[in-house]
């Protein structure tokens, strides 16, 4: 919302005091009221050097067809009074005797151009005649601006047109403040804050017989759609250009001047916040209007010439025969539009159902200044004033005569509520110490009138222009806003608890640290996938889809961290990045029959250009940090992974995740070269493991004995199974068992390999004897050879 200071000033007879000369301070006040000023701009550009000149004669340029020579009288401003001054001009719209703006030599135009004496094909130009656009005074660039014949020749243009420099505030108005989508509304808030009176000026105009009620009528068939509907009838309307001052204000407010009737309509909307619409009365039989909802499939040609098919959720203004002539609050119809030949106008100002307008304007893609105001809520009690303001301006500008009386019909309009405001509540929420009088003093200027007062509370009438306000807390906000939030002070509340992270939150941090210690950096791929991404990764295509995706590439929610990390690997590979080790910790989403889908938290890691062994090494390191003792690696085929180089992870008898290498097929589908190591684990079991810290085991004071054993073991037997067997056989004397060598050769033959283990034996309470050691050795060898059809080497 753009608001001019001069325009607001019309509602504040005593002015804004000293702040009027300090636009930035005024902007701070507005911002402090919640009407955030995004920019402050001085407009009403400098017209120094531009004077009123009279055309004395027009002559053909001897050498050029597109330029003419104009002799002007500058009234002594740039040449002696009555003495012709020659100007070369490319416009041909003026006639002898016209008054025109002349930029004299040395003038800097509003657009920055410097005016100097010039030679045009051998003729001297002693200045420049200006168009409205060049003066930034309108959007008419077709010809030289022709000035009012009553102006004084030689007078400065600013003085002649009464134009002073002005300040434009660009405001960001929040959705709860429809009243501030008007100049008057902003002025009311600002005046209240600055303690100066706000006054709606009188809008006098003459009225003529016969009364409007004999020439127009309205029936509201749907009172949900229409809260209130007002009409006026205007005759003898001349549809010409609007005056310069109005055009300037409209331009500053972001509206393009079109013609006097449209301009007045927009002007009244901007000033009062009440959108309005004009019909050519001649096209509306008997001036009869009916307001109803559209029927599904009904059509109307809107004033932009487009035929639009309506839905049963759209509101309509129809003629007496129930033929649609306007989409309520959104856009008028083509057939009833004001034209050059219009003389009588049916003026509508209504307040519509907010949701209906929101739906229709969105569905038709017709959001406008008007629909925005209706969506947020216009003032149903402001209709008469808006109609009157329109009539006053139309009488002044278009020579309109106004038929007596306004026709205003109530639809579903409700009376704004009265609210009891307790000072104790006000003071508790705002940390203030206000009494009822102080509260009333803050509320009255913004239209929250006091209905009755008790010692510790008052009843307040909510104004009709504040549809957002209906409860005590709404009024408390107004009190706070006008008193100033800064007056509430500042203190830090003291919770009666210690701040602490949960086990899950601490666990996540530990998981991240474990992976970072292994050289993995944290990636954050988006959780969205394209259709087919899961299948490409060898996973079930059962991801939850979005109802309204923006693009197909982001239409499925991931069921695994795999696709996102593969995309990250592919991205890094295509950018020739080295040493790509990434991990991600995040949620995956699985379909469910419950109220909400299932969310599982996983951590997964990839190493570009590395095989399963790297994944397993990482796993062991991470498992040590994360207290995952007892985790088992079970060679298995796992979706998306290399079928002969992958394993399932089990922890406390439950599936923890997977480790290995990405399947070559999947890598091909993601256009990744080389191998990619993979490790994935569920987060909750890891978190749980952090909650049972390792139990202390007393360190033995007695010497330990080491023993190396190598077995030839068939390929079908996992190296870890051999260790498990040795552990079982070795009992508590076997402290550690580690695989330290794997050897394959032709002499061993077949698929078998030699696995060499280093075992350490130790007792807690004695030095082991040779006999004891020999015994346990035999037991272990026996168990391994028997269980795994292995042979000792």
């Amino acid at each position: 919302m753009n608001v001019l200071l001069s325009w607001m000033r019309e509602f504040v007879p005593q002015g804004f005091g000293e702040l009027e000369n300090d636009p930035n301070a005024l902007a701070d006040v507005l911002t402090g009221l919640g009407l955030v000023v995004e920019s402050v701009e001085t407009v009403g550009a400098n017209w120094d050097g531009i004077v009123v000149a009279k055309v004395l004669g027009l002559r053909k340029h001897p050498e050029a067809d597109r330029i003419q020579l104009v002799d002007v009288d500058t009234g002594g401003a740039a040449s002696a009074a009555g003495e012709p001054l020659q100007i070369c001009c490319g416009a041909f719209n003026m006639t002898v005797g016209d008054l025109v703006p002349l930029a004299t030599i040395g003038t800097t135009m509003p657009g920055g151009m410097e005016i100097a004496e010039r030679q045009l094909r051998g003729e001297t130009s002693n200045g420049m005649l200006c168009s409205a656009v060049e003066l930034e005074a309108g959007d008419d660039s077709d010809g030289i601006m022709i000035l009012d014949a009553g102006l004084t020749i030689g007078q400065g243009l600013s003085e002649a047109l009464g134009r002073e420099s002005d300040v434009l505030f660009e405001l960001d108005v929040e959705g709860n403040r429809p009243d501030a989508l008007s100049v008057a509304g902003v002025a009311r808030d600002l005046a209240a804050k600055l303690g100066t009176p706000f006054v709606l000026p009188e809008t006098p105009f003459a009225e003529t017989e016969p009364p409007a009620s004999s020439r127009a009528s309205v029936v509201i068939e749907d009172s949900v759609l229409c809260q209130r509907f007002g009409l006026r009838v205007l005759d003898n309307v001349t549809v010409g250009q609007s005056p310069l001052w109005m055009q300037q204000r409209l331009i500053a407010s972001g509206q393009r001047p079109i013609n006097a009737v449209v301009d007045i309509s927009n002007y009244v909307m901007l000033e009062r916040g009440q959108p309005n619409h004009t019909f050519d009365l001649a096209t509306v039989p008997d001036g009869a209007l009916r307001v109803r909802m559209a029927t599904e499939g009904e059509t109307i040609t809107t004033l932009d010439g487009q035929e639009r098919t309506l839905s049963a959720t759209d509101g309509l203004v129809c003629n007496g025969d129930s033929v649609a002539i306007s989409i309520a609050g959104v856009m008028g119809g083509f057939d009833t539009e004001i034209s050059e030949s219009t003389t009588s106008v049916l003026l509508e100002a209504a307040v519509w159902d907010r949701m209906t307008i929101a739906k229709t304007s969105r569905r038709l893609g017709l959001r406008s200044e008007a629909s925005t105001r209706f969506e947020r809520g216009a003032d149903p009690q402001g209709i008469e004033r808006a109609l009157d303001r329109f009539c006053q301006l139309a009488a002044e500008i278009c020579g309109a005569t106004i038929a007596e009386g306004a026709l205003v019909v109530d639809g579903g309009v409700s009376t704004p509520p009265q609210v009891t405001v307790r000072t104790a509540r006000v003071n508790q929420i705002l940390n203030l110490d206000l009494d009822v009088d102080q509260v009333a003093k803050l509320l009255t200027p913004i239209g929250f009138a006091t209905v009755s007062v008790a010692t510790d509370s008052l009843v307040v009438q909510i104004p009709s222009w504040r549809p957002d306000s209906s409860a005590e807390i709404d009024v408390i906000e107004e009190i706070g806003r006008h008193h100033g939030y800064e007056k509430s002070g500042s203190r830090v509340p003291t919770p009666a608890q210690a701040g602490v992270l949960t086990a899950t939150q601490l666990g996540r941090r530990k998981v991240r640290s474990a992976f970072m210690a292994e050289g993995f950096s944290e990636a954050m791929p988006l959780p969205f996938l394209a259709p087919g991404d899961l299948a490409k990764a060898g996973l079930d295509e059962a991801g939850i889809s979005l109802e309204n995706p923006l693009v197909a590439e982001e239409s499925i929610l991931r069921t695994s961290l795999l696709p996102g990390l593969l995309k990250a690997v592919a991205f890094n590979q295509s950018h020739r990045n080295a040493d790509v080790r990434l991990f991600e910790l995040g949620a995956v989403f699985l379909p469910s029959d419950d109220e909400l889908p299932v969310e599982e938290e996983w951590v997964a890691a990839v190493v570009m250009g590395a095989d399963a062994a790297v994944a397993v090494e990482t796993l062991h390191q991470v498992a040590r940090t994360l207290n995952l003792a007892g985790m088992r690696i079970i060679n298995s085929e796992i979706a998306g992974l290399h079928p002969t180089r992958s394993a399932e992870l089990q922890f406390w008898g439950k599936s923890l995740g997977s480790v290995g290498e990405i399947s070559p097929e999947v890598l091909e589908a993601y256009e990744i070269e080389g191998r990619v190591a993979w490790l994935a684990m569920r987060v909750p079991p890891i978190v749980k493991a952090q909650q049972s810290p390792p139990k202390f085991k007393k360190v033995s004071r007695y010497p330990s004995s080491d023993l190396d054993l190598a077995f030839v073991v068939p390929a079908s037997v996992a190296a870890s199974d051999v260790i498990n067997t040795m552990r079982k056989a070795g009992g508590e004397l076997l402290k550690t068992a580690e695989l330290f060598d794997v050897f394959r050769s032709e002499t061993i033959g077949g698929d078998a390999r030699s696995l060499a283990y280093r075992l350490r034996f130790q007792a807690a309470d004695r030095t082991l004897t040779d006999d004891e050691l020999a015994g346990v050795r035999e037991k272990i060898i026996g168990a391994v050879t028997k269980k795994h059809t292995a042979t000792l080497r």
Partner: protein
Amino acid sequence: MTESLLDDLQTSVAEAIAAVTDAADIDALADIERSSLGKKGFVVSAKKAVGTLDPELRKSTGQAINEAKVQLDEAIAARRSELGRSARSAQYEGERMDLTEVPAGASVGHAHIVTQTWDVLEDLFVGMGFRVVEGPHIETDWHNFDALNIPKGHPARDGFDTMYVNHGEPGSTLLRTHTSPVQIRTMLDQEPPIYVIAPGRVFRRDTADSTHMPVFHQIEGLVIDRNISLADLAGTIDAFVTAYFGAEVKSRLRPNYFPFTEPSAEFDIQRSDGSWLEMGGCGMVHPNVLRAGGIDPEEWSGFAFGFGIDRLALMKYGVDDLRDMFANDQRFLAQF
């Protein structure tokens, strides 16, 4: 007799000291030590011979022998340490390394800057006595909107650009557009007083550009206690701002509108040039929201605030395009 004993000893000592000085290494020195001070060395022999002397000579002779022994001891110790030093310097010379030749080796990994910022914020509020609460990413329409005083048809719903998921009734289930539904879950889950923050990932139906992502991260605070006022909100914001940005950074509240708080405010921080930067939204929890959370607004009041984590990360590290933060480029991730 005495004379000749002492003369012999002194000759032996002088010879031994000369040999000590000439000893080429620790072994040669040990030989000299053995032959002079060892069990069969001449010093011990001389000491034994003292017993054969006249009693009146024994004391002075014994003293002379001891002096000779000390003299020899010192010479050996001095030579030993000299030999040790030169052996060490020979070792050092032999082991000389150019440490600038050593490659940097594998890097440790880096936490994502969103995580780094997130953790700092969590720690900061935990320090102020807040707990950290969480909720699901996929939410019901009720938790995300209705319970937050944004009923169906409320114009504020338009502003959220919500992504709905195909689950249950159409339009019933969505990717949360803010962390505020966690407020509702917390209120339904625990009795006041409540002092919590809810950091989390949120979603908007937005095309990615330098300042927008369809997925981003927010942190939200909720306090509900007796007699909580706008002053408590201002104080908490101020405590956070000075802790995070520095003691000299000021904050202010200015009126704004959010459906779930009233009075509502935007909180700004002041840049060093005096201008104000919009940081986030806040306000007193709307009575309707407290009611939706099963809390009596006459008995309890509260405030809430929220702001973006990604933007803080962006500001801290000077990243100028939000998309870079989520491209997962190793060269980006390894910088922080």
